């Protein structure tokens, strides 16, 4: 019997299996941000164990509330900052150099095929796009990760999506993952990895694969995972060129991080997605999904383009392509948050920022920002937001508000119209 990619990663990292269904794994990366890490740090200090297992494997960023909005968030930033300095954690990204964790850490080359990664953030599943096992954990798992470099997981089960056909114009990875979550429901993949394979994924950029894997958690999945290929190697090349003689050599090395043909899956889904339409959520659960055409005309008050799901350069290019030469509706306000400083710089150089500003968008610094209503872009009661983020929970962006999840293309088009609309209406 062959093995799945996740089983292979477990085999390569297992420290012990204290119970039949419990695997303690050695960690290659522990990622930290200022919301879930400070309590781990203060608890370690209180226990007299203010240590880190390996400062080179720990990466930290302030991203959820930046700039700090009040004394409490300033204190959270300070705890993380002081800790990073104290333990010589070199890769700590403070304001000015910070970005949304699941965008900046891959961008810096910290994620590699076959790695084990944890972070105190549920969207850590994003990094599976590189063929890594990356799982969101709570503060206690994070604390043990920081101290000991290990984390415990149940035996991995995998469901596989074999995605065939091709995405139609105006249909993107976001539409595909919303469709998949609708099929799986919000707990259809609980305790499972979701493997995304097939020609559709092969054709996707790393940005699109990250969008796909980012929302695995919305179906309950532990990680969304793709096989590494030349696209992965190209994305990482700047950071791995000293390690490998050529891109082909890197690809050959990474090619061990795929599932065997006779691996055992919980379930295999086969879809031809050629007829998939742009999708959008209604209600308060990410599996409440309809086609944009069914939701056309739904009134919105705010548009938000950004987040670990859709704040990358590809997303900004797509949105700006629709907004070029147009103005947003007088009935809405719109915010765009480039996910990292590098993305912001690229967007400036490419003229995208000017397009957003001319269209009437507010451009913020890189931050998680409006996605979880913690620092900016909070909705008033009764308001609706067209958002490229990942959660539409009740109150997520502000008490009494409604969030409609959608692609950057649909969000940009909806900004112009002031109501939910298919982006094909504005195709260049």
């Amino acid at each position, binding site marked *: 019997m062959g093995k799945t990619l996740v089983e292979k990663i477990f085999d390569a990292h297992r420290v012990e299996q204290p119970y039949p*269904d*419990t695997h303690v794994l050695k960690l290659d990366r522990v990622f930290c941000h200022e919301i879930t890490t400070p*309590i781990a740090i203060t608890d370690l200090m209180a226990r007299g164990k203010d240590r880190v297992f390996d400062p080179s494997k720990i990466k930290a960023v302030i991203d959820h509330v930046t700039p700090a909005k009040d004394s409490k968030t300033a204190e*959270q930033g300070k705890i993380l900052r002081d800790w990073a300095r104290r333990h010589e954690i070199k890769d700590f990204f403070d304001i000015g150099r910070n970005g949304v964790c699941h965008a900046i850490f891959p961008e810096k080359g910290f994620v590699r095929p076959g790695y084990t990664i944890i972070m105190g953030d*549920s969207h850590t599943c994003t990094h599976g796009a590189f063929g890594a096992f990356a799982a969101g*954990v*709570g503060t206690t798992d994070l604390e*043990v990760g920081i101290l000991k470099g290990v984390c*415990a997981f149940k035996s991995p089960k995998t469901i596989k999506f074999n995605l065939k056909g091709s995405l139609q114009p105006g249909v993107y990875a976001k539409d595909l993952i919303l469709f998949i979550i609708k099929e799986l429901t919000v707990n259809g993949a609980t305790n499972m990895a979701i493997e995304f394979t097939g020609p559709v994924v092969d054709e996707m950029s790393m940005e699109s694969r990250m969008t796909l894997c980012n929302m695995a958690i919305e179906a309950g999945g532990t990680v969304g995972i793709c096989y590494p290929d030349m696209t992965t190697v190209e994305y990482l090349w700047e950071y791995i060129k000293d390690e490998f003689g050529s891109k082909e050599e890197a690809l050959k090395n990474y090619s061990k991080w795929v599932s065997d043909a006779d691996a055992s899956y919980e379930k295999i889904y086969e879809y031809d997605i050629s007829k998939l339409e742009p999708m959008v959520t209604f209600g308060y659960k990410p599996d409440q999904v309809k086609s944009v055409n069914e939701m056309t005309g739904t009134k919105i008050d705010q548009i938000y383009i950004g987040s670990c799901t859709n704040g990358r350069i590809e997303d900004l290019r797509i949105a700006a392509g629709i907004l070029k030469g147009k103005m947003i509706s007088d009935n809405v306000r719109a915010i765009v948050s480039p996910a990292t400083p590098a993305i912001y710089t690229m967007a400036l150089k490419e003229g995208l920022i000017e397009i957003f500003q001319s269209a009437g968008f507010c451009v913020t610094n890189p931050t998680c920002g409006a996605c979880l209503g913690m620092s900016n872009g909070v909705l008033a009661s009764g308001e609706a937001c067209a958002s490229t983020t990942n959660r539409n929970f*009740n109150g997520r962006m502000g008490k009494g508000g409604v969030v409609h999840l959608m692609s950057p293309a649909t969000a940009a088009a909806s900004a112009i119209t002031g109501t939910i609309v298919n982006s094909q209406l504005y195709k260049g």
Partner: protein
Amino acid sequence: MKNFNGKVLFLDRSDINTDEIIPAKYLTEITKEALKPYLLEDLSLKGFDNKEDIKDKVVVVTRENFGCGSSREHAPWALEVNGINVVIAESFARIFRQNMFNCGMMAIELPKEKIDNLFNNYSGSITNIEVDIEKAKLFVTSSEQSEVIDFELGGFDKVLVQEGGWVNYADNRY
């Protein structure tokens, strides 16, 4: 070990997410105790009053996929500082479930028909549940009736509860 014996709060809904258990705006708190007044503040459940209904409760009984969404351990902490150390549900989101045991608290899964019976037979009256970890049994009592329900407790989950959580366990072992 924590207290696993006391009054039950029935939450008759599936997919109660961590934003409902503790809204993101309170994640700026850096002590667990500070979360106490905000537990279940945004819960969307008809007739529920988070100021009155959680008083003196130790056990939550609910439906499917409890604790879905964010990884925030603030969700179990908000329960813990209110004295609630046990959640019994049809199923849990993975991270929430692990966070509970990592804190030495209990996330107990029961089959749908047993959850249905608890709601049907007990949710209208003041009910007490005592968890016996050694025997893996729940002793359910109200003024009208009582029963004993078996549950499954994995070896790793049990040792986390007995040792007071994952930090203690891991620190002794790795």
